[in-house]
């Protein structure tokens, strides 16, 4: 039986020690010391079976975008506006009232005739590439546990993020860049770094957070630039370091720890310019920058494409700090939010396609849950005096995927007549994770890590691969 890797393997096994150097920010190809082939098939760093996707980009609409205003049109809701609708025991986080129609028009797009609201007209141009899942479900209508569930597969307990699991399972493709990057402009989403934590996996699998609104790359990554030294001076300094380290090594028997550390300085030196290069969107031609449009989200989409081209494994693009899509007060706010990201998402898909990257990149769009089709009622401390917003809803919501082996122009599952609860082909977040991992060539039941006497896996004891959405 395959013995799942344990913390001890990661720490004691020499070959693995070298491999560990190859994870996290700046993998190390250790020349003669390590070849990728030396990695046994059962160790992390290799897929379990042939992957359809090599990389993931998660466009995270944090706060919870409303399904009935974006990708799940509900004529019955429009018809029953202002009237009570049967809730069938569905409880919302806050007081809610009658049906609230969507103020946005839906139309059909592409050969598949996918219905998308006017909010996402640029995204809709790629209708034939989108696989919309209208039957997502989560566990509770609160942001924090739902973010944890979507990102880490457990609403309550501190578990590693899916990005950490994926980089643990597949390793890195680029020696000089982080394998897992989380970009968010102007701060962090709520739950902050817990959204990309490695938890009990080694720290090198943790996501690297970058504030994409910072114009200077050297301020985005800690210690990336020396504020005082010139490049040529640092190069000379490294020459001396190498000489002294080689003196030290020469009087000792072969020791991979010492050699790995020597090598890590050379990598770090190279990373200084390569990371700067990868994240500097100013280097893109004007036509490409115009395609993505203005704004922070466009900027980070462009960064994401540059990172993908350089082999970064898992990228999260957060809409903004806090929880921007949390339109409790007025659903009209969705218009502004969509305007901030739709053009860039459309351009991103166009750009990936024209570069042949979409086939092996799995793009996921969505929030931690959706919103109620009924109006949220006012109460002290929130949405004073207006009744135009929607509350949280975990009973049914929409996400879409594109590229990476999913069916294009496809709709999976359905919610009830009003868009409240998933009723057909329900897909829990665990199922989404299992399916994403499957597309990456990872069996969610075999991707395990031994910790605290137990083999943990990203989907705990849940999750099933939804084959209906795989092309």
């Amino acid at each position, binding site marked *: 039986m395959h013995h799942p890797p344990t913390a001890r393997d990661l720490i004691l096994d020499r070959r693995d020690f070298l491999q560990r150097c190859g994870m996290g920010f700046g993998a190390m190809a250790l020349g003669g010391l390590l070849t990728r082939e030396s990695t046994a098939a059962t160790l992390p760093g290799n897929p379990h079976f042939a992957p359809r996707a090599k990389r993931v980009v998660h466009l995270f609409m944090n706060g919870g975008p409303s399904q009935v205003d974006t990708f799940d049109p509900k004529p019955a809701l429009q018809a029953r506006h202002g009237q009570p609708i049967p809730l069938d025991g569905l409880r919302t986080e806050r007081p809610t009232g009658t049906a609230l129609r969507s103020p946005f028009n839906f139309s059909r797009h592409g050969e598949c005739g996918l219905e998308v609201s006017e909010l996402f007209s640029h995204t809709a141009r790629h209708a034939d590439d989108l696989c919309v899942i209208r039957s997502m479900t989560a566990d509770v209508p609160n942001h924090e546990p739902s973010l944890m569930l979507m990102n880490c597969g457990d609403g309550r307990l501190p578990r590693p993020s899916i990005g950490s699991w994926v980089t643990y399972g597949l390793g890195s493709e680029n020696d000089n860049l982080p394998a897992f990057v989380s970009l968010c402009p102007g701060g962090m989403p709520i739950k902050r770094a817990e959204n990309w934590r490695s938890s009990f996996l080694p720290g090198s699998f943790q996501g690297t957070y970058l504030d994409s609104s910072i114009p200077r790359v050297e301020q985005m990554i800690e210690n990336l630039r020396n504020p005082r030294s010139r490049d040529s001076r640092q190069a000379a*300094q490294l020459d001396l370091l190498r000489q002294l380290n080689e003196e030290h090594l020469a009087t000792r028997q072969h020791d991979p720890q010492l050699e790995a550390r020597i090598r890590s300085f050379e990598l770090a030196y190279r990373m200084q310019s390569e990371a700067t290069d990868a994240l500097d969107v100013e280097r893109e031609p004007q036509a490409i920058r115009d395609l993505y449009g203005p704004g922070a989200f466009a900027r980070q989409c462009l960064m994401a494409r540059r990172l993908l081209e350089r082999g970064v494994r898992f990228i999260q693009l957060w809409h903004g700090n806090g929880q921007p899509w949390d339109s409790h007060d007025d659903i009209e706010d969705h218009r502004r939010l969509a305007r901030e990201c739709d053009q860039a998402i459309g351009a991103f898909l166009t750009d990936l396609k024209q570069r042949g990257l979409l086939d092996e990149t799995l793009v996921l769009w969505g929030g931690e849950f959706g919103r109620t089709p009924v109006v949220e009622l006012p109460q002290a401390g929130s949405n004073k005096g207006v009744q135009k917003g929607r509350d949280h809803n975990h009973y049914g919501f929409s996400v879409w995927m594109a590229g990476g082996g999913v069916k294009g122009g496809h709709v999976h599952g359905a919610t009830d007549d009003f868009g409240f609860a998933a009723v057909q082909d329900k897909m829990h977040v665990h199922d989404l994770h299992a399916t994403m991992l499957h597309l990456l060539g990872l069996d969610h039941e075999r991707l395990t890590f031994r910790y*605290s006497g137990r083999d943990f896996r990203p989907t705990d004891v849940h999750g099933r691969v939804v084959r209906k959405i795989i092309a």
Partner: protein
Amino acid sequence: MKATALIQRFTVRMSFRTSILALAIGIAPCFEALAHWAYESPRALQPAENPEHPVDFHLAAAWQDAGLRPAELAAPRRWLERAAHLLTGLPPSADQIRRLEASPDDVTWRAVIDELLANPAYGERWARHWMDVARYADTQGYNFDRDNRYPFAYTYRDWLIRAFNDDLPYERFVQLQIAADHLVDRPDHPDLAALGLITVGPRSGGPETIDDRVDVITRGFLSSTVSCARCHDHKTDPITMGDYYSIYSILENAVEPGELPVIGSAADASAHQAYLAEIAALQEKDRAARQEIIDHLKSPETLATYLELAWLAMEQSWDAPKTTAESFSRGRFRPQAVLRWRDFLRHHRAPERANPRIARWLAALATADAPTTRQLCLDFAKDWTASPPHPELAALVAEPACPLHLSADRAHEIMDVEDQQAHALRRSEMSRVQAEHPGSPPRAMSLHDRKPLLPARTYHRGDPAAPGPEFERHWLGFLGGGTFPADAPPRLALARKITDPANPLTARVLVNRVWAWHFGSPLADPGDFGPQESAPVLLPLLDELAVRFSRSGGSLKELHRLLLTSRAFRLDTQGPAENDGIDQANTRFWKWQRRRLDFEIMRDRLLFSSGSLSTNSIGGRSVNLDDPNADTRRSVYAFIDRFALPTTFVSFDLPHPDHHAPRRAETTVPQQALWYLNGPLILRQAEKLAAHPELAALTDARQRLEWIYQRIHRRSPTARETAASLDWLAKVNPADYQPRLSGHWRVLQLRDDASPLTSARPFPLHADGVWKTGPNLDSAPIRWFHAGPKGGHPAAGHALVLRWEALGAGQIRLAGGLKRTQKGGAALHWSLHSEAFPKLPEGKLPPGGSTAVESPWIDVQPGQSVDFVLRAPEGDAFASFDWDFRIDGRETPTSAIAEISRLADAFPHSDSPPALPPAADPWADLIQVLWASNEFQFLD
């Protein structure tokens, strides 16, 4: 008998298929579980008459079995480096080195070990080890947007330091951390801080917090994964849900006091009075806010509305959301108070009680119009609140369920969301004062038991919403089980069970940890001593150490002496090459395993060698390690935010404090190298050491090198090292040590816009953040003419000149934008100029327009400049503008681009040029290299 019960339990739990399998192969699995090595008492196998050192005795046996030959002894200097760093986290003293090198005998060696153990730095080092076990952090994790700090976590850390330094017997060490409140004789006893083991963990909801506490105790002291039995009996170990929920129940009953006990006096006694005044003010603010809520409920005008809402809620059967919405639509009425009135009135209208006053009120309301309703409710409210109340209501007012019974201290019962938010902010403020005020005294993160105790229940599948029947708490079944003795509170009884000399795990678990902290890897997996782990190869050694540790009364210092006086501790890092074919991973410790210093030792050692570290101030509040002022503090005092763990800690493998960490991972990632190359701490410390007066007094390069080597490596450089270093110093390019490209902004004016730019002069006045020609813009000599960080106003016939002057050489470009903020007026003219570049962009800016401005790359030398000039030749009406400029720079056309200066951040407030930064010192670079070198990082 006990064994039989265990077999039964274990067999019953097995699935049918497994049971058949078990029968088919005999009941081997059950016996295997029972005969598990870790569940049997350790035995010392070394014959009493054998004089050999027990560590070496057992290792020799293992080497012989495997055919290994041990390494030779290392040089005495190596022993000392190991002992000093491992025991104290700091280098040995020059005197210790000299003495041991002069006489490397047992007497001297023991004397040096004793000195190291007597150094208070020992407690700091070993407290940090234990903080990994205890998942120590200074914050509780995610807490919405409120202050998430534990202001007094540090008192637990300081207690650990004292406990190690005092060599507290392990039994006491364990018991205090679990049940100090039951063991101390006064409410302000400093030992209460020991309970931090339980309380400094993450907080993520009641059951999760308790689960974390079960885990830290059972894995921390017993290396047993009891937490796995939360939702079902353990899949592989004989641990049942009953075991888990017995301990869970004990910890569920341990609650934190509302006010943490003060256990000492404030570090700054003079500030204590000020602190007390500030706290009193905050308490008063809180009381007033609560009183306001109660007054609102009890004053007749507002009470009338509450009563009316309660009546409507009763008549129209409102649910909670409807009540919330309706209450809110009337203004700020607390829904919880409405619901209380509704229930109270409903209760007293019931036919069997039928209060006549209530009945009359209800009857009148039934037919009333709106103004009458209002009046009826107001009258009714006055009857309730009159003193004395209306005779028919007097008895009701006296009932505890009457909403009028609420007082300020119970105001939280009816707080709405906004009240709760305000309340949380007040608490947060209180917590901030306690954490930061210099007069705030230390407090223990203490616990006490609920009275009465809640009974133990299992939760079906771990779901708190599905509690099972009550059961009697019992000790862990796999360690003998049985109910806890009734003569002690359950938590103390649990602590005694853990420290019971008959407990086969406790001593083993501890000596295994200590072994690993000294020798680099453990004898058994510190994360799990359960039946999935087969007996360790060196079990006899583990057991011998456990037995001797217990015999010594649980003295950790005695254990250190035992381990450090072994030959094994003093072996060389290299041994016979043929061993590699047998045990390359050195699992039998036939040589000393070289290893990298952890982050704390590395940082402390660096700061020690630079002379910054203060080693005589033990304990105190946690400090932010990014703050240069923290360079005097040892790393053990770092403020650890489990919610936003600093990237340095992540890069350097500090275990995440959300979990108990059985051991640290050890990774080599480029972020670590970046820390050595570019990190602010190493850069400022290198400059500091390079400027040391003793070094400055030496002029000869060899002498200087010798001084630096002694300081950092405490040895002389070898001939080759000297040659390499001197050669490197001789070859450095002086240009590399000139200041990096920098410069400064100037805001100038030309009185005549046809004059040459060289005649531009400063504005006569800088005030209110802008450059101008007189105090008031509308009456200044040149009206409206001014410039500030965000924008300004040009003047017809004059020119506004924004100049950036270079202080170094390189390539720069000026980039940014200009925007007109008003619609009217005529076009403005702008242009760029530089003596280093003949023709630069220019343009016109119509009213309301905006434009991007960007120069090409310009080669500049120190003193050269680029000018942005703005004129208003067509008139200056409505000519206000916003601007935003920056200077990008690069050393050469191929090197990386960096932003050098942004006008908004570096806007000049005077026209005198800033001092040129001093040239850098190649010796500082050399010092930095020595700190970054492998020799400095590894313990040989």
